[in-house]
């Protein structure tokens, strides 16, 4: 699917250029075609295409995956709310006055540090 999207973006971008000679749209279509390549590249690099994972095996049964660790998932966190409050303050400072900027940056930094510490626990 990723390759199909890349092909579509590349082909239509090329056709668009030769039909219109309009730079903005051509650039947009070509850059759109690159994003699926990034996703496809990641999937290939991480073996999702080479080795056939259980989820892509039509005959797999759940017990074959029994006990397989899926990952660590946080239970609850207040830091996302703090992150957003910090971001809004930074944004508002651009509109209402740069006095708010250090406050916003401080709160955002606090939230980022909080999130990072949470991931390590």
């Amino acid at each position: 699917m990723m390759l199909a999207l890349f092909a579509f973006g590349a082909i239509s971008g090329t056709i668009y250029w030769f039909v219109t000679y309009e730079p903005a749209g051509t650039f947009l279509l070509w850059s759109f075609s690159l994003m699926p390549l990034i996703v496809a590249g990641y999937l290939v690099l991480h073996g999702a295409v080479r080795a056939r994972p259980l989820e892509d095996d039509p005959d797999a049964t759940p017990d074959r995956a029994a006990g397989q660790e899926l990952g660590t998932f946080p239970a609850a966190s207040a830091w996302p709310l703090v992150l957003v409050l910090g971001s809004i303050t930074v944004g508002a400072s651009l509109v209402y006055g740069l006095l708010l900027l250090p406050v916003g940056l401080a709160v955002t930094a606090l939230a980022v540090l909080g999130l990072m510490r949470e991931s390590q626990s």
Partner: protein
Amino acid sequence: MSVTLERPVAAQPEEPPRRLGPVERLTSTDHKNIGILYCVTAFGFFLVGGALAGLMRVELAEPARQVVSTQAYNTMFTIHGTVMIFLFVAPFGIGLANYLIPLQIGAPDMAFPRLNLTSYWFFAGAGLLILLSGVASTGGGAAMGWYAYTPLSEMRYSPGVGVDLWILGIALVAISNVMGGVNILTTVFLMRAPGMTMWRLPIFTWNMVVTAILGLVAFPPAVAAFALLFIDRRLGGHAFDPLGGGDPALYQHLFWFLGHPEVYILILPFFGIITEVIPVFSRKPLFGYLGLVLATIAIGALSMGVWAHHMFTTGVVNNPFFSAMSLLIAVPTGVKFFAWTGTMWKGKISFTVPMLFALGFLLNFLIGGVTGVMLASAPIDFHMNDSYFVVAHFHYTIMGGSVFAIFAGIYFWFPKMTGAMLRERLGRVVAVLLFVGFNLTFWPQFVLGLRGFPRRYVSYPPDIGFDTPNLVSTFGYFVMFAGVVLFLADVAVSLRRRVPAGDDPWGGNSLEWVTSSPPPDHNFDALRPIRSERPAFDLRHPELAP
């Protein structure tokens, strides 16, 4: 504190899920909670946008009537459009996706739960900023139309902080969407249960995959456009200012490169809802699964190439290229319609409330789609662009389509989310009121557009053919209003006096119906082998399983 999860295998005794307190509701990273937060917040914005619509309809009901100032009216349609598009329909789709995708693919949560919560808070924060932008300036708030075309949105013509707050709000919504998109794609690609191949995914999940890709590709250029606009306004830039060597048309290209895929972001999740509802209530498998998936991908891809059909009357784009691409999108959309009809064919159709809304969707969206084909013709668009014909077209697709699907989805999944059923008879009244009210409101707007009534007009001269359709349209709004009020009453009553739903009140097809209502933490205590796109059905009918 974090939790290590293992894939489930053996059945464990089920604990009923805890009711969450208010602080927990706002900080829990459980996808089900975040999904509900999204949906409830988005529905709240629907009520705000709907109230603004009501004020506008009252203003337009009669030519001589002036209930709000012109400046206020211009602010109202700006905020109405922004709220409905960015704060209601799109987030509701993401909310439903957050709730359903892990359940539908057999996963315990989304791939990045804290990112999920962060994207919700960015959405909520964005909502606050956008509402503020409507009221913030003493000269009136953001009143440049939700397109924010330049040079009108430049500082010279829109002084004050309204537009700047609006830009910040949209930027936060974009960040929220991109985060959500990353989360959805990673979850679907890497966290499906064993045997849940991509070709057995429920169509709702497939549609969300394409929606997520569209969001990832489409939002960044728009954020770039808004950043440039902000620089023009506040930091002495001239990107879009012809007096400084800039070009207003460039803004339109960048804006519509998001703007058009955005409307597919507004419909694809809801095509997905309809595709979940129809097979269940026709008691049949979905017709043409592969065709539907390919059609969805085709719609997503094509939607990136049609943006300048919003610019047919500007004289700066190659109209035939965009006209051809826009006409082509009708083909995969038609494929979907035939797939839905084929699903109903030779079925055993029951007219539950979700199915009634789904039928309303089909009838309404067809009109929206056909009128879209008309608008795809550039010469026809020379007359219809920027008229009420376009307004009617997009309300038929987004409101008659997506919003009807939203109601279908609410009636369908409310039992799963809360463990309680909504009232069937009251729901039928709601469905009829909304259908009749919707058509009374928006059909006359096709007539208005054809006769020459432009968009974004606060008033109109009498006796040139605009009077009666406007009056009928306003009447229709109040019929819809009654439907929405009854719906809210239904929700309140159903939560108060609960009728237990059980795991699977409808006889559903996908995995969410296999687990309890509401589902336990981490969703599944045990999973059976998955062999088709309707695992819940296969469990009930092993004799028919492939």
